[in-house]
């Protein structure tokens, strides 16, 4: 790795630290500010909310100490990834999350890759045919997809591909009881992934298609495209190298910004498709008012988003040398 690149990566990594600290502090405040504390809730849930019992719980959780001490304890625990217990499931929150996180990550990464790759390709195709029939059809299709609610799309896909055509599974992450291993397992998961990833990603395909088209048209107006033509390069090569490389930059930026939204969207899609990820856990935690679990998920999701943004920034640095060398 070149020195400038190494420094760039290091700088970005260091920027992550304060962000994560801020999220943790925010999380802590939410925990404190919520009406009634964990002791109240738990005592209520256990059905004997006497003052004495609640006070006892409070001492157990350290809720009777000064706020700053509680904060330090909280941060200390975070460092060891101790997010406390899920009051209802009587399991460490971190275990519940670690159990569900991979499924969500798989879904998210598939959806975003689908959206970015397909969006870029269609966007380039549209830009190269600006104003012609194909371009107009793509614009209309993108607008339709853009306006389609994800849950409705998900249900329609299930009806079409699982129920009517019976070629794709309607839910779950793998075939129950099949016990596939190795490649067969990967294929099985991929098979189950197609519908949820499409449902989650299609909206973003529409967005990136439109953005990529606009970005390509802007790049086509720049001087170095004329240089490329004067060199004797074909329009195809110009589109897929010189123009694309520059036009990608806004798309990558937006993709970075939208990772948080995508995570939010996956909660919904996971519920529709019975995908065993964080989304279902959020749903359960909300229904059962499991505050510790909810905040644990919030914290880990924020960290995931921060790391994803870091990855996006690094990709951006790879695409645009001006960033790295600044």
């Amino acid at each position, binding site marked *: 790795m070149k020195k400038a690149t190494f420094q760039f990566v290091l700088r970005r990594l260091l920027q992550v630290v304060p962000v994560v600290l801020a999220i943790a502090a925010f999380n802590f405040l939410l925990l404190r500010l919520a009406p009634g504390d964990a002791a109240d809730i738990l005592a209520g849930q256990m059905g004997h909310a006497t003052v004495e019992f609640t006070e006892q719980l409070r001492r157990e959780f350290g809720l009777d100490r000064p706020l700053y001490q509680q904060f330090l304890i909280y941060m200390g625990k975070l460092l060891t990834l101790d997010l406390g217990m899920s009051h209802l499931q009587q399991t460490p929150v971190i275990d519940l999350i670690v159990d569900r996180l991979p499924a969500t990550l798989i879904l998210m990464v598939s959806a975003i890759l689908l959206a970015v790759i397909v969006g870029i390709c269609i966007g380039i195709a549209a830009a190269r045919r600006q104003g012609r029939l194909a371009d107009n059809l793509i614009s209309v299709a993108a607008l339709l997809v853009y306006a389609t609610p994800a849950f409705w799309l998900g249900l329609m896909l299930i009806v079409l591909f699982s129920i009517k055509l019976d070629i794709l599974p309607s839910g779950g992450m793998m075939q129950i009881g099949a016990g596939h291993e190795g490649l067969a397992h990967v294929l099985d998961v991929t098979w189950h992934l197609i519908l949820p990833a499409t449902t989650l990603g299609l909206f973003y395909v529409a967005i990136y298609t439109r953005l990529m088209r606009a970005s390509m048209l802007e790049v086509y107006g720049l001087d170095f495209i004329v240089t490329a033509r004067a060199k*004797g390069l074909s329009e195809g090569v110009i589109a897929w190298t010189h123009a694309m490389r*520059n036009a990608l930059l806004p798309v990558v930026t937006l993709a970075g910004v939208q990772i948080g939204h995508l995570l939010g969207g996956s909660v919904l899609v996971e519920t529709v498709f019975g995908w065993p990820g964080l989304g279902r856990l959020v749903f359960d935690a909300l229904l059962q008012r499991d505050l510790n679990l909810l905040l644990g998920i919030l914290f880990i999701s924020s960290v995931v988003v921060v790391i994803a943004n870091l990855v996006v920034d690094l990709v951006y640095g790879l695409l645009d040398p001006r960033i790295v060398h600044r």
Partner: protein
Amino acid sequence: MSAPVLDVRSLSVEFESTLGTVHAVRDLSFSIGEGETLALVGESGSGKSTAAMALLRLIPNPPGRISSGAVLLSGRDLMALSEADLRGVRGREMAMIFQDPMMALNPVYTIERQIGEVLRLHLGLSKSEILAEVVELLRLVGVPAPEERARQYPHNLSGGMRQRVMIAMALACRPRLLIADEPTTALDVTVQAQVLDLIHGLKEKLGMAVLLITHDLGIVAETANRVVVMYAGRKVEEGTVGEIFADPRHPYTRGLLGAAKWEEADGDLLREIPGTVPSPFEMPSGCSFAPRCAEAIPLCRGAMPELKDVAPGRQVRCFLAEGRGHG
């Protein structure tokens, strides 16, 4: 005289716009011989860049269109070539450098990649050959530490260095004709002379023809052999540098020279030709220069003067000049 490297015949270029058709270049003819530098001069908007782009058929369509003309490169008409054959000419037999070298280079690719692309495309060089040749080319155009520069990006280089890179890229395949569209306008004054010397030196060394587009008559005097003066899309005068400077026949050429002399005498006081270039949508019916011409006679407003040969290789488009050769 041997066949010219470039022979342009009756080239016309139009742009469609909501206001009407702009005739950016009209009936333009000129030729350039081997080892010769032809300067194309004229005020902004006179159609110089449009003419240059049309030579390589790089006019954006829409809105532009080459409406007529032939462009013969060593006898072969580029207007009759297929797109694929034309791409074989671009960058190989006819190369171009532009005004702003920052904008003309792709910001996300290394210098090596951008010069190497031409070598791979036209000469089919391998990866290792490309690196060696890129370094050689950078050395040829006077870029210091070429091995290091080759791996850098345009933003790592100064304006003058970038223009040298553009020149290296243009010369990669030893083209017969180099088109330089205001190659020094965007550069510092001190760097301008270096870049011009470089183009001139390389022209001598490689024996190519050069079409030099410029506003700057000082540059013309130093580097060109012949001059074509354009006004509102048309050629109004042509001659050798000596003829044009010593005996300008067209009032517009005299105006340009007068403006240049004043500029030299007193840097701050820019004397310009009074008036402005007519809007392409409101061309006067007679001579397009008539509204600004101090010497105009009634005839000038009624009819467009023809381009007349006044001596071998010497042409003028002005009613007054037609008789002057004899007197």
